[in-house]
């Protein structure tokens, strides 16, 4: 395809153009032969050979005017066969700005990550340049990717308005989820083109289905990370605080031990200092008080633990990277991941996850507030048989595709128990199960629009007498719960892992509700992953304290659901008047690891319905009409050819 006069032109059957050369050659040959004249046998060429008008040989090709008419007809036929079409430039365009944490990389040698020197700012400049070449009648939606995809403006904009709206794109925490977001945009059917401005590089789909995607998506890779070369690695180093957890130093005392983990994404060892601070709303009017400082040398790419001991935790705690040396700024290009909030409370025992897989595979690592302990089924049986305290003290268990030989002594969640389980019965796996009924007004189903729950594969459960059917589908029971032997039990016949937080909100809230109901709510109410909704119904007030200031959540409160979009300390008044505090945290190595370029893979994209105005004009009908006219002209031309009267000889 190529652009001409602002429109894209292409050919449906470009191979048909190969006919041009032989067709034109054939026509020319025919006229050259005709120009030589038809062969006629005459009685004698005795007299004819004496004529002066003999043509010895025709060396130059001088066709008559009708040749050009026939050539035009021939060429138009070829063009019609080749399927010439015109595609109006995309008029419904989505401009997706990656404002994830990784875009906060400071590209200046001296300045830190502030607007004006970040990759995000460069992306905005690129977007403005892109808008500059757009038709004025294009309809544009400007969206930002993080912490979840949302438009900058509720309505579609003109290019000039979009240019102005780009100023509203702010640096955010969170991931970009570009592939997911791009698919969402096309699936909506509102856009015929998406322009993405990101620090990621495009990686074409190995299955070769990216061509269609490449025509519908423009990827603008900005920033040094997208053009990462060996030489530039030393300029894009970063240090990030990954996590911070607090545990009681001893079972009886009120002293806590805070363990913070940081990683240096550097080419060499990095000297890192973490500071533990206390955030006091009452005594200091909302300010930080330093408590302790711990320094450590981190090996490149390896997490290092910073332990703050003997901490008296009354107020919320905050950990941050400190550095007195401004020259160190080159080693720490992103400031947003230099700090983390610590929840004011923590559990002493860890819930158990009994699975042959990993916590990462189950997505449970995203629940930073809840350090689950993973044991294999074999290990569990051994520990349970030995009445080990790990099993005995575990506040809850999550059995993933496993059913123990002995019924657990703690609240437990069973996800896809084997069909031949002792305690649980189920039937063969089925597909296309649609939710028909669910247990309403239950804490587990709070905040849930269960008909929106997608269950690709269901292992229909047989609800025992002690259980209550939690979710019924067209293919059987998908979940039930109840109390057995004094323990709360939830059994699921469909997959809820891996936990994907905001990417799968229904499942995520369902999972958090289950965990909360099973008394594993400790972290979920005190540590909230960024982008996850606060699993509290009917919040009355809510405010978020960030390291840069107070953020009002009134707008979210009015909508009925609070989803913090940046790290901070969330203080809210729950239903019943209970004041609660939770830390909103975020960490994603893909965003913080500045040494590794991110890749964007485009496969086949959903078609959706073509938005109004997106049109492809095929020239076939027009060419057909034109050809008919030309053929008619050709016919008339032939008919009106003068018939010469022979010159009669004298008789």
């Amino acid at each position, binding site marked *: 395809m190529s652009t001409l006069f602002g429109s894209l032109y292409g050919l449906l059957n470009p191979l048909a153009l190969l006919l041009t050369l032989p067709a034109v050659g054939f026509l020319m040959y025919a006229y050259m032969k*005709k*120009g*030589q*004249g*038809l*062969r*006629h*046998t*005459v*009685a*004698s*060429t*005795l*007299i*004819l*050979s*004496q*004529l*002066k*008008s*003999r*043509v*010895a*040989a*025709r060396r130059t090709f001088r066709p008559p005017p009708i040749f050009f008419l026939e050539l035009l007809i021939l060429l138009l036929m070829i063009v019609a066969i080749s399927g010439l079409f015109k595609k109006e430039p995309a008029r419904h365009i989505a401009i997706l700005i990656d404002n994830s944490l990784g875009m906060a990389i400071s590209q200046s040698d001296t300045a830190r990550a502030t607007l004006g020197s970040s990759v995000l700012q460069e992306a905005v400049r690129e977007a403005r340049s892109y808008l500059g070449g757009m038709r004025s009648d294009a309809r544009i939606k400007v969206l930002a990717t993080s912490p979840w995809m949302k438009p900058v403006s509720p309505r579609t904009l003109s290019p000039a308005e979009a240019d102005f709206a780009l100023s509203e794109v702010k640096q955010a925490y969170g991931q970009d989820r570009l592939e997911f977001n791009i698919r969402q945009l096309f699936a909506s059917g509102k856009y015929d083109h998406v322009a993405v401005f990101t620090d990621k590089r495009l990686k074409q789909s190995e299955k070769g289905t990216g061509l269609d995607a490449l025509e519908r998506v423009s990827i603008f890779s900005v920033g040094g990370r997208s053009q990462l070369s060996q030489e530039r690695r030393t300029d894009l180093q970063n240090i990030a605080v990954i996590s911070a957890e607090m545990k009681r130093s001893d079972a009886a005392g009120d002293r806590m031990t805070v363990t913070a983990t940081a990683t240096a994404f550097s080419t060499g060892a990095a000297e890192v200092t973490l500071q533990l601070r206390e955030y006091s709303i009452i005594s200091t009017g909302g300010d930080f008080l330093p408590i302790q400082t711990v320094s450590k040398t981190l090996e490149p790419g390896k997490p290092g633990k910073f332990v703050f001991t003997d901490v008296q935790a009354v107020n919320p705690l905050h950990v941050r990277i400190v550095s007195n040396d401004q020259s160190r700024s080159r080693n720490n290009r992103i400031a947003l991941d230099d700090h983390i909030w610590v929840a004011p409370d923590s559990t002493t025992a860890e819930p158990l996850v009994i699975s042959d897989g990993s916590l990462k595979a189950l997505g449970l690592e995203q629940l930073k507030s809840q350090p689950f302990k993973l044991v294999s089924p074999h290990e569990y049986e051994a520990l349970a048989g030995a009445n080990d305290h790990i099993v005995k003290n575990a506040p809850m268990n999550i059995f993933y595709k496993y059913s123990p030989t002995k019924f657990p002594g703690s609240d437990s969640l069973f996800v896809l128990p084997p069909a031949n389980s002792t305690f649980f019965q189920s039937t063969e796996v089925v597909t296309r199960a649609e939710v028909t009924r669910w247990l309403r007004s239950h804490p587990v189903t709070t905040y849930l629009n269960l008909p929106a729950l997608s269950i690709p594969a269901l292992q229909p459960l047989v609800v025992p007498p002690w259980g209550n059917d939690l979710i019924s589908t067209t293919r059987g029971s998908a979940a039930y719960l109840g109390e057995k032997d004094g323990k709360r039990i939830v059994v699921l016949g469909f997959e809820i892992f891996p936990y994907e937080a905001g990417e799968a909100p229904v499942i995520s809230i369902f999972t958090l509700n289950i965990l909360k109901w099973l008394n594993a709510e400790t972290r979920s109410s005190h540590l909230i992953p960024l982008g996850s909704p606060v699993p509290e119904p009917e919040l009355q007030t809510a405010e978020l304290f960030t390291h840069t200031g107070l953020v009002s959540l009134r707008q979210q409160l009015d909508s009925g659901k609070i989803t913090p979009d940046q790290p901070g300390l969330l203080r809210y008044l729950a239903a019943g008047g209970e004041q609660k505090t939770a830390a909103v945290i975020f960490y994603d190595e893909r965003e913080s690891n500045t040494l590794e370029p991110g890749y964007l893979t485009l496969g086949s994209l959903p078609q959706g319905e073509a938005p109004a105005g997106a049109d492809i004009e095929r020239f076939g009908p027009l060419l057909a009409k034109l050809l008919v006219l030309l053929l008619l002209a050709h016919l008339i031309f032939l008919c009106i050819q003068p*018939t*010469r009267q*022979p*010159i*009669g*000889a*004298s*008789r």
Partner: protein
Amino acid sequence: MLSDNFNPGYLRQLELLNIRARRTFLGARHGGHLSMKRGHGIEFSDYRKYEPGDSPRHIDWGVYGRSDKLYVKRFQEEQALSFFIACDGTRSMLTPTTAGKWEFARDIALSLSYVALMQHDSVRICVPGVMTTPAFSHGRGIHTLSDLLDKATTGNRIDFIEEFNQGLHQVKFPGVGVLISDLLMPFEVIQKAVNAMRAKNLDINVIQVLSDSDLDPLENETNVIAIDSETGDEVRLELSQEARAEYSYRLEQHNLGIKEFLANYGISYSLALTSQTVQEFVIQHLARTGLLA
């Protein structure tokens, strides 16, 4: 079989005609033509002195009475005429087939043959390269001649002079020779043919047969490759209006040259156009030329 041209009316017209030779010839037998032989024919010729032994019946007593001398009448003996018709049956006479030149020439030959046969003349038709008929001298011979001409496989590529001479060789007695051809051949060939006939002491008549396509070849064509039907030579042409005018001029010049050549030897020339009818040409035109009376 005679063509449709030979309807009863035309045949009756032909029967009223005579072949006229401009010279007297030595005939083999009695016929309707004056012979070189002197003898007992019915045509008075002149006187000679009486010689003993002459028949007294031939003494012209009137002259004796006036001159007192005895003279004997001398008479020219009337003989049968040898009539040789060479009819060109080469490819040029058949090109284009729709022109009908060969048929026209054939019918002229048959018409003259009929007239000759009605006079009890000896008729032999030669189609060079194809055949030479035996001599026919009776009226019924016209049908045989017609059949022979119908069966003739014309349109061959031949050495015209060689074949013509072969046919001419069969002429034993001088008489009337008619050459019927389109004469669209090099002048030298025509010259040789005429000279060969002159060597046979024939009273030569040349009839040129041309069709419309000879007068205006390749009507409606502009650019054309003309192929000679006999030689196969190719000529590429741009037949503009001017070119056609030039062609007409050159054809006329060609014909004029032939005519002048023939005139030098007292040979009559006639131009037959296929746009006429055979009857028109034979009855009206040939009568004016003197071949027929």
